[in-house]
């Protein structure tokens, strides 16, 4: 069985996994980082999105062993101590969640979007970039508002981008 090492939320971790162990299983079951959710388990809903080497990926469709040596950031890695990440704060402020199931994936996708496209995001771009994240509660309006606001807040706090 592969022995793997990687950095998860700035901490060095090692584990012995089966070849077939998914990244999301390593995160949730072995490392007990249960903020990352499994929704559809068929790479459609995006509840499991985490960052691998700074890129958003669906952790239900990625083997843990493929992340050997990688830097992984999960939703637990965004807040700094007791202070929410600006994107998390924006979701709270704009009521960008109801049941909260999709929220970790939404926020990780949103931070990735800001990292790729900058702080000034228009509604159309946010909506098209969210096609890999499904929410079954809010109808997306408040999520889109939250992401636009969170992106703007991130520009005021550039340190937030260094969470990778």
């Amino acid at each position: 069985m592969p022995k793997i090492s990687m950095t998860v939320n700035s901490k060095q971790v090692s584990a012995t996994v089966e070849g077939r162990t998914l990244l999301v299983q390593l995160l949730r079951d072995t490392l007990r980082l249960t903020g990352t959710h499994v929704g559809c388990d068929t790479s459609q809903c995006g509840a499991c999105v985490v960052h691998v080497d700074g890129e958003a990926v669906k952790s239900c469709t990625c083997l843990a062993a493929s992340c050997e040596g990688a830097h992984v950031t999960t939703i637990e890695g965004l807040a700094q101590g007791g202070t929410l990440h600006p994107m998390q704060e924006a979701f709270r402020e704009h009521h960008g969640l109801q049941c909260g199931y999709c929220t970790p994936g939404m926020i990780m996708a949103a931070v990735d979007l800001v990292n790729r496209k900058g702080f000034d995001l228009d509604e159309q771009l946010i909506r098209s970039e969210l096609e890999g994240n499904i929410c079954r509660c809010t109808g997306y309006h408040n999520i889109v508002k939250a992401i636009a606001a969170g992106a703007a807040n991130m520009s005021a706090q550039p340190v937030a981008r260094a969470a990778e």
Partner: protein
Amino acid sequence: MYAFDYHRPQTLRQAVNLIGRTEDSKVLAGGQTLIPTLKARLANPANLIDLGAVPELRAITQKGKSIVIGAMVRHAEVAESPLVKSAIPALADLAHLIGDPHVRNRGTIGGSVANNDPAADYPAACLAMNATIITTKRKIPVDQYFQGMFTTALEEGELISAVSFPIPSRAAYAKFRNPASRYALVGVFVAVKSGETRVAVTGASNGGVYRWTEAEAALKPRFSLAPIERLAKPPSTNMNSDIHASADYRAHLVYVMTKRAVAKALGR
């Protein structure tokens, strides 16, 4: 997922050796098709050979009048590549239309071309631009490469290392996608190079990607919309039919998407 032995070669040579040494092995590229297939227990390989650590398959380069894209280049990288965007904007456009942002961060051109899903996007680009599929053994002209859905000219143990696209003078991709899966219900790639026009269709036929030769002939004298508008719609024989679209509807979409691709290639 059934259990398998996982291998992570560090070079292409190691990967090829591993395939030769192991029984019943499958090769993992970006995993956006293979991992779901394994999870659904539709495949049960004894060995999985992950190309993720092989560095020499990750480059996008220009060689003469062609753009050469390494097999492990991700869709997001093709979509954002300044070289691809300036030389073959239609190819960057196609890559941007695959899946969603997270899938595009993992999925690779080599995986797509090796799998030859009948609704995948890259096969249409390869066929329309008369690409060459470069493997660990040889260079395969695209007209000999795609051999029906999920079937290619690749032999046992042969790996795609890159795909070489001759830069066309005009090209465009028009895709009518399934809004849930984001696969092409029908996608049409048109490309003009040295006076020759090729029209490649994906998603439509139960034989996989194909060239719509009637449309190519109609566009031969002059690349414009009028000859396509005069053309008869293709017959629905051999078109796929499923819960997403009937064979008739797909045939109709082939016609409409071809018109849209030609218009786009003309800058309209």
